[in-house]
């Protein structure tokens, strides 16, 4: 290739680089919007519904420009007096006024575009604003308490037959998530917080977290089901029929044992592998994550002479959970989550509330661990392994603890999930799930438990209901297609989109975009953010060839 040709090819790139940041951003935003419109079929996109989306996308894409450029623009317009008056206001007033202005603006645009926000949505906005306005000290407690109480009363609201009276429909996301989705959201949060200890705190990339999920679920299957019919052992089991053999432990015991077994397996996996450098460790964990489902799938013909996992159909049924008669009589806790004769007494609510309890315990442990001597050692290893080792942090032991603690909560999440669906089978456990949980941690912000919980809730919701609701909304409001003419195995057919089919592509896109543009996640931990912005000494330990 001649030099002249190279210069000719490079000229546009150079010209592009000469433009100011703002210009480049605007052009990028416009290009993305054009692409979005082209993809959605511009002729089918009606202004009525799409207008809001376009405005919101525009604002999001150009947020930094809007933010950085607002007051300079005001100054340039000759309204310097407005600016000085604004900066004379107290910080509290500035804080209070900005969101109102933005909200009013967005609502006005939505109104003009023909989308009338539900009054209930306005109430929700006002409530959020109220919490936002509270003084910092109060807000610290008000926000989690508010969220927690809303989460606690949620099953009561959603399980009314006419729940629309209590809960409104959201614009694009349609109805509120069902109990099944909520339970999955909470359980995946538990696992994501567990993974966060490994990836977020200690900085070890674990691509096989599904192994711990699977192991926890199988421990529940082994210890609370009729699988091992040759033995008859009962320890505080509830809701198990008379004369049914097999191992039946109380679910609470099962949860602890599941945690312990998975933590122990984490130690076993970690012991030979944790001395590998970061990317090799990731691959090894991936290998374990792939091997375990294979063992589960073939565990009925393992040559040991007994049926370990019951093969592809899996273990079914797993005993329903409950607190037992003593707790029922003395503490008023339900003896059994399922009544006799298989009749459901708000089974899902009980499972959900217990899951929230488990999540709270997990969060408590996670935060206390983070602030403990061990947690500080994890963060030290994450930031600079060599410096940490020089300061006397025992690398192997600390990493193994991180691995084991993460595995512990993965196991508990898995056991509770198995109990909830009352079965465990190998096809639930794929590499996809590992990446799914990993993307929760990445999206939420590695290291920040609240961000991780938010990421887990959001992604699980999208996975279970959100994506299909969104594509349903697109189909009926923007594309106006005939849903009966679609082919369920292709993403775009008959003018309709079927977004859930490419859900993992969307998670992949989320991972890539977050890593490229906001590597510390949506809700970054300050320390992690600083690591990414100022950089840390990141040469991994060369321990492989020893």
């Amino acid at each position: 290739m001649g030099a002249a040709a190279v210069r000719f090819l490079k000229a546009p790139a150079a010209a592009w680089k000469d433009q100011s940041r703002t210009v480049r951003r605007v052009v990028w935003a416009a290009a993305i919007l054009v692409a979005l419109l082209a993809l959605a079929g511009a002729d089918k996109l009606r202004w009525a519904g799409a207008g809001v989306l376009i405005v919101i996308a525009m604002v999001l894409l150009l947020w930094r420009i809007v933010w950085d450029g607002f007051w300079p623009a005001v100054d340039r317009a000759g309204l310097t007096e407005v600016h000085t008056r604004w900066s004379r206001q107290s910080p509290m007033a500035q804080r209070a006024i900005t969101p109102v202005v933005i909200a009013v603006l967005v609502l006005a645009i939505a109104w003009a575009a023909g989308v009338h926000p539900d009054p209930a949505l306005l109430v929700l906005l006002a409530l959020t604003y109220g919490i936002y306005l509270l003084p910092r000290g109060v807000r610290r407690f008000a926000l989690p308490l508010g969220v927690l109480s809303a989460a606690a009363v949620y099953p009561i609201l959603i399980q009314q037959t006419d729940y629309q009276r209590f809960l409104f429909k959201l614009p694009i996301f349609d109805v509120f998530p069902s109990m099944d989705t909520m339970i999955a959201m909470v359980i995946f949060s538990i696992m994501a917080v567990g993974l966060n200890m490994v990836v977020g705190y200690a900085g070890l990339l674990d691509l096989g977290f599904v192994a711990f999920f699977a192991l926890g679920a199988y421990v529940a299957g082994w210890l609370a089901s009729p699988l091992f019919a040759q033995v008859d052992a009962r320890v505080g089991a509830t809701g198990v029929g008379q004369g049914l053999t097999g191992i039946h432990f109380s679910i609470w015991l099962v949860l602890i044992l599941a945690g312990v077994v998975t933590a122990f397996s984490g130690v076993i996996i970690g012991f030979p592998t944790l001395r590998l450098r970061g990317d090799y460790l990731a691959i090894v964990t991936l290998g374990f994550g792939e091997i375990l489902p294979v063992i589960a799938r073939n565990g009925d013909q393992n040559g040991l002479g007994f049926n370990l996992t019951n093969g592809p159909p899996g273990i079914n049924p797993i005993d329903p959970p409950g607190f037992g008669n003593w707790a029922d009589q003395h503490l008023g806790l339900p003896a059994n989550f399922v009544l006799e004769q298989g009749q459901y007494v708000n089974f899902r609510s009980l499972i959900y509330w217990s899951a929230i309890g488990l999540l709270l315990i997990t969060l408590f442990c996670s935060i206390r661990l983070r602030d403990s001597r061990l947690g500080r050692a994890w963060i030290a290893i994450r930031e600079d392994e060599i410096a940490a080792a020089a300061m006397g942090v025992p690398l192997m032991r600390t990493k193994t603890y991180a691995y084991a603690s993460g595995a512990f909560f993965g196991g508990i999440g898995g056991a509770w999930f198995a109990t909830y669906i009352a079965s465990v089978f190998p096809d639930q456990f794929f590499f996809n799930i590992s990446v799914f949980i990993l993307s929760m941690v990445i999206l939420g912000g590695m290291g920040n438990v609240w961000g991780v919980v938010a990421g887990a809730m959001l992604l699980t919701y999208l996975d279970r209901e959100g994506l299909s609701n969104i594509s349903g909304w697109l189909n009926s409001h923007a594309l106006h297609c005939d849903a009966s003419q679609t082919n369920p195995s292709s993403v775009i057919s008959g003018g309709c989109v079927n977004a859930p089919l490419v859900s993992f592509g969307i998670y992949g896109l989320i991972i890539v975009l977050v890593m490229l543009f906001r590597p510390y996640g949506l809700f970054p931990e300050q320390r992690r953010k600083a690591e990414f912005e100022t950089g840390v000494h990141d040469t991994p330990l060369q321990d492989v060839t020893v």
Partner: protein
Amino acid sequence: MVTEAHSEPARAPRDLSNLILSGTGLTLVLLVIVWLGINLEQDPARFFRILLIGVSQGALYALIALGYTLVYGILELINFAHGDVFMLGGMITASIVLQVFSLTENPAFGILIAAFLVSLALSVLGCSLLNATVERIAYKPLRTAPRLAPLITAIGVSFILQNIAILWKGTRPVALPESEFAQGSGHHLFTIGTCPSCVVYTSDRLFVVLVTVPVLLALLWLVRFTRQGKAMRATAQDKDAAAMMGIDVDRTISFTFLVAGGLAGVGGTIFAFYASTIGYSTGFTLGLFAFTAAVLGGIGNLPGAVLGALLIGMIQAFNEGLPWHTPGPAWTQAIVFGILILILVFRPQGLLGEQTPEGS
């Protein structure tokens, strides 16, 4: 440096654990050899038949494994998306075979060759451009980021590529027409021994080897004897020093991704013809097998990747075909990943030694 800093009193247990580790490793290898020997003794003809299957399979894995090893050697990045680039190459091939040539069952040899060559060219072109584009968009901005960042991005890209295949072809696997190149339906070329205890060589196996070997030789020539190859090796050894010697590091890296993508394209086309079915998730598993092969041979080491790929191909074939005490196809995945783990634990530098900036 660090080991010296804190493990001085722990030297003796370290040696002991090393001894245990290498002892276990040796025992495992010996057991495998004994198992192979007994199988060979029981049914020699079958053993060699399966060996031939393994060689074809291994040649295919070699094409993919080289892509991993090239990229790892230069960037120290496990390019997770590589297997999916390979899969998209297969998809391109499937489209051309079905839509442009509209081949049906058992096509005429001339048309088959033409379809193969055209799809090979387009698949190589498409895959190399795709791979280089992915590098530009997703990996290049992260070159100074913490080391795990590009790895995580690569996983994301892998999922995106799989879902592009779903967008394009749907979730069901695409089937290609049976042809002389398809596994199990090739012509008998020659036979050794008297049947039924004979070893036959069929055209499908020859075809795989016939395409793969020249490609591998061309790659070796490119890396060893050309100016561009010298630039690649220099960049792999030390990026800063290479830049000081006037090598355009970014361009060299892009070129490496182009070459790796091209190899994946060749692999995709061969796979599409040989296996005659390809689905969106094919690339992930095969990619991991090939990655295992690259690690087995010593990552960054080109002959190592070929050796590792042949070994993995044979192990897979032996496991799925040998008669005496064989776990069977259901366990193939577990065995290959088990090998990956064992290699990384016992001999992380691989059989022939790794050749990376840090490893050498």
